[in-house]
């Protein structure tokens, strides 16, 4: 048992250990953890540590001690506060707490943890956009009700969107539903990557509905292009 109280007593220790072993099995793990001086340089550099109850030092410490209970707790909570800026990479031991968090998050998603599902609520449309269209944000996302805090100019962009996009000299930027014009052939190759690397399974684990919608879009396009979907 670790130093901290078990906040998830309903989850068997063996399950927490299994998830931790999955983290350690990631090929990148040895590159992200070399030990910890407890110097706190990572915390001083960390933006999330200033506004959340969050510490990259604790992430590195828990991993170095293999504190399975604390790591499970972090996997369900702390990891979603990280800004992924990698300011913590200035660690004098060459640790990357941000890199550890990338793996911890990935294992949380891969195993469909409820906390990961909750953390990604409201984020599905972004996942759909990037996986389905090949660009992360699109001009038509700039809606005043979605970004009221960005000021009145967002409404102006939204009102004039089609016109203002046509007023862009680069020919690839006349789009409103994608960041730029992406070829169908390119999208098909992207879809093949998602299917061949297990990403569609990850999506199914964390958001079954999103997986169904994405599968419909992708499989239709792949089948039209002559690919048999049997991954």
């Amino acid at each position: 048992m670790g130093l901290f109280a078990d906040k998830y007593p309903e989850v068997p220790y063996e399950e927490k250990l299994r998830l931790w072993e999955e983290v350690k099995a990631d090929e990148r793990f040895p590159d992200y953890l070399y030990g910890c001086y407890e110097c706190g340089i990572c915390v001083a550099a960390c933006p999330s540590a200033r506004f959340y109850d969050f510490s990259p030092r604790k992430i590195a410490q828990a991993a170095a001690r293999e504190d399975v209970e604390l790591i499970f707790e972090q996997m369900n909570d702390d990891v979603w506060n990280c800004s992924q800026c990698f300011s913590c990479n200035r660690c004098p031991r060459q640790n990357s707490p941000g890199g550890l968090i990338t793996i911890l998050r990935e294992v949380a998603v891969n195993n469909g943890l409820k906390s990961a599902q909750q953390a990604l609520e409201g984020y599905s449309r972004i996942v759909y956009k990037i996986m389905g269209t090949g660009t992360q944000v699109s001009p038509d996302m700039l809606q005043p009700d979605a970004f009221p805090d960005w000021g009145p100019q967002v409404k102006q962009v939204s009102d004039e969107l089609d016109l203002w996009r046509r007023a862009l000299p680069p020919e690839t930027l006349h789009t409103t539903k994608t960041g730029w014009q992406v070829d169908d052939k390119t999208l098909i190759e992207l879809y093949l990557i998602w299917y061949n690397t297990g990403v569609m399974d990850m999506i199914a684990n964390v958001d079954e509905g999103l997986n169904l919608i994405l599968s419909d879009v992708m499989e239709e396009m792949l089948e039209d292009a002559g690919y048999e979907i049997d991954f």
Partner: protein
Amino acid sequence: MAVLTQEITTKRTFDRSTYEPGEDFHEILDDLERRGELIIQRVPEPYIEVMTKYGRTKKIPLQNTWHHKSCGQCGHIPGYSTAIFWIGRKLGLNYIDPTDQTSCTAWNYYASATSNAAAQAAVAHRNFAAAYETGYYPIIHCGTSYGHYKETREEIMHHEHLRHQVRDVLAKLGKPLVMPEEIVHYSEWIYAMKEMIAEKQVRDFSDIRVTVHPACHYYKLVEEDAIYDEDIYGGQRTAIVTGLISALGAQPIDYSTWYDCCGFGFRHILVSRDFTRSFATQRKIEIMKEEADPDVVISHDTGCVTTLDKSQFATGVAHGANVGIPVMSDAQFAALAMGAHPYKVCQLHWHSTDYRPLLEKMGIDHEKAWAEFEEDLERLKSGEIEYLTWEDVG
């Protein structure tokens, strides 16, 4: 070495310590190529050599470049991408603006983790292979794409299993595993050409006070091949952007929280913006105001320009925060110096924080410029023209 036409204002002293350079990734890539594991796409001539963090040199190609665009730039601040292309065109440099390009998908990966190392590397190398097929050299517009691609380069170099997994996925697409000799960010291209840009400068920026926000994913992710220069902060801080500002004769002003991130947070900017706004305002904009009182913040990445610009409205109105600094990219700043139109090229009407006082200080009549842009919009509305073209914007 940088050609500094303008001294950097700072109260701190900088001494370049002796860094211990680690492995040279070029040697590892050469070895992998010799063993038939991958193909290296060599930097085409002509190129300019610049210094990186540990004193090594990096080749920056000038032309025959394949511009790997950025999601956030193209989607929400399109004057950023437009300015990059415009500078290349003004300097007579050949390039491709490809449609056979996807996002690096790293914004989503850092936000949601709904992907994995093999998928991320395969996406990177699909794009690299697409560039290789054209014979043009990739130049990366987004700081996160640049940093993430360097991370995937590390993984491909050091993890054979992953390398072979990615190679197999690419084979199913009919593509080879190609690695660029150097992974080049557009701001490095601009930095390398800063004297050429300064030669084309038509506007006097000597009164313009500038704070620089260096992008985290540019120099914190795989730091070894970010650009440094002993003449800029003693080589203790990346020289990117500051070198350009100085070469254009503007005034780079130091501030204490230069190392802090902008607050973008990847998922936070989309679903937890209270954090983003607070951090951007309290740790960046207000401190810049207090310590440097700049006319403009210049950065070189999608997320940073978005965050620092868009976060100021709500904190200013709702909390009376000491905000109100316009934000733009180094590309837009350089384009304005070279005489670019603030709306037709730099597309500043997509930005939130008021930039018009800055334009006035730059000697630009923004009312006249907006009237000119509105004339173009009328031509578009009437159907006289379908799109604004490069020929239309000068």
